[in-house]
């Protein structure tokens, strides 16, 4: 296991970019992959991950564990994640503050949770269990949401801060998700940053979204917008630089576009460090 330096930028590694990344490895601090794409016994994908791992620290980002399911945590899914974590020895392991399955049905999505004491208690128990099975701390990410619960009585960031305090997990702060929700539900995202202790932040995510019918949708299919870059800069000023990732999943562009976004993230992070030390 490697510890990532705070001032480091990575990209989500997706299959169409494998060859280019392996043949001329770009200057990146780490690569992040979706854990579920590597729950395989062997083959080309596992070989690619092995090559990526030889060249870069790896972050395993889960999208299917459904930590917030009210009924149960899927033991088979957790066992597959454990096998992968033991194999890869990643720098980071993360999941989401969300649910995606109930009973036998899986929606393969990051569905929002109400932010209540009940949910905090459930997630604390789940995160404890996952960390004990994986034998390491994990990161939990805030999600984009399109509906909100009337009985929510705290912000998602306040819930994450308390979850981190109780379980020792870190927060994966997705700046785009925070911005998307601030627009969708009309709150001040900067006030949310103030609820997070700098030490609790283990990674930040940056991605693009699209607008439809007065709602921002987290599509990971465009460049990071100006407002999200500004919020990222504010986060860097408050928390200091943190390992930061460019995520892009739909309408995947050329690798150079991702590297260009990563360079922008890096220059913003450097700028905030220089200002802080000036």
């Amino acid at each position, binding site marked *: 296991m490697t510890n990532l330096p705070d001032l480091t930028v990575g990209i989500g590694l997706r299959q169409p970019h494998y060859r280019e990344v392996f043949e001329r490895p770009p200057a990146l601090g780490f690569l992040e992959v979706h854990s579920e794409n590597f729950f*395989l016994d062997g*083959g080309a994908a596992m070989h690619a991950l092995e090559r990526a791992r030889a060249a870069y620290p790896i972050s395993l980002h889960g999208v299917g564990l459904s930590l917030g399911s009210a009924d149960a945590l899927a033991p088979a899914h957790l066992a597959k994640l454990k096998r992968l974590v033991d194999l890869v020895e990643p720098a980071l392991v993360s999941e989401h503050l969300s649910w995606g399955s109930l009973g036998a049905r899986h929606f393969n999505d990051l569905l929002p949770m109400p932010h209540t004491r009940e949910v905090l208690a459930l997630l604390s128990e789940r995160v404890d269990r996952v960390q004990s099975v994986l034998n390491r701390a994990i990161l939990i990410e805030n999600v984009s949401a399109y509906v909100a619960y009337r009985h929510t009585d705290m912000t998602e960031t306040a819930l994450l801060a308390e979850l981190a305090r109780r379980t020792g997990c870190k927060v994966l702060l997705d700046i785009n998700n925070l911005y998307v929700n601030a627009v969708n539900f009309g709150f001040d995202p900067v006030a949310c940053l103030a609820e997070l202790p700098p030490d609790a932040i283990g990674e930040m995510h940056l991605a693009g979204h699209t607008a439809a019918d007065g709602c921002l949708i987290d599509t990971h299919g465009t460049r990071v917008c100006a407002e999200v870059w500004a919020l990222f800069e504010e986060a860097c000023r408050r928390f200091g630089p943190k390992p930061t990732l460019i995520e892009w999943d739909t309408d995947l562009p050329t690798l150079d576009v991702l590297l260009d976004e990563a360079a922008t993230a890096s220059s913003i992070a450097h700028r905030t460090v220089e200002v802080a030390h000036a």
Partner: protein
Amino acid sequence: MPELLDTQQAFAGALQHADETARTERWLSGDARLIEQRLAIYRANAAAAAAKALGAAYPVIQQVVGDEFFDGLARAYQRVVPSTSGDLYDYGAAFAGFVAEFPHTQSLPYLPDLARLEWAVHRAYGAADAPTWDGRALAQVEPAQQAALRFDWAAGTAVVDSRFPIARIWLIHQPGFDGEFSVDWSVGESALAAREGFRVVVRALGAGDAAFIAGSLAGAALGPAAEKALAADPSFDLGQLLGRLVASNVICGFNTDKDE
């Protein structure tokens, strides 16, 4: 305050049936119209995730029927067989049976067999890497013991039989295929799907080769498997087949234990 389980049950119900949205209105913010509009985003997400996973497992069928039709096919499949796992590599196992029954694909009678072949290819893709071995050990087996040999097959190896030329159809739809596109529809094919290194290969097999491999994969010893192969095709050439399968490491070992 509503219980989490109750809210998730109602939420899940509303994602599967739009007419159940009203059950969520008591504790989701906004008016009925807004809630329905927003839940529709999640419905579309779930449908897109499952359709994408299905397309990843069945890229040839997607090409054959076209993206738009495939999307409709995927939606219909999800209504019958929804995703049950956070690991979408497992999604689509029942697709061959589904397209066999689906009214709008009856004009493509080869589709179910093609689906079975694509699922075999999909599973071989992520199967465990075969151990490497020295195939020359096979030549050292005493003649008296040869008939009792059982082979170890690379994980994911499968034979799919069809009265349609499914291996040929699969081949001409591969990215980068630049050969002749003609298909002889009068020929049925048994297709081998197997991992050779990290690549999944599909090959049309002669009747004898298909019978031998299928028998051996099912656990038959060399002797009985070869007898079946000769019955299927009197010109079956065991030596040539074994040479090929050992060289490509699709046969990745053997044992001579009679008890197995």
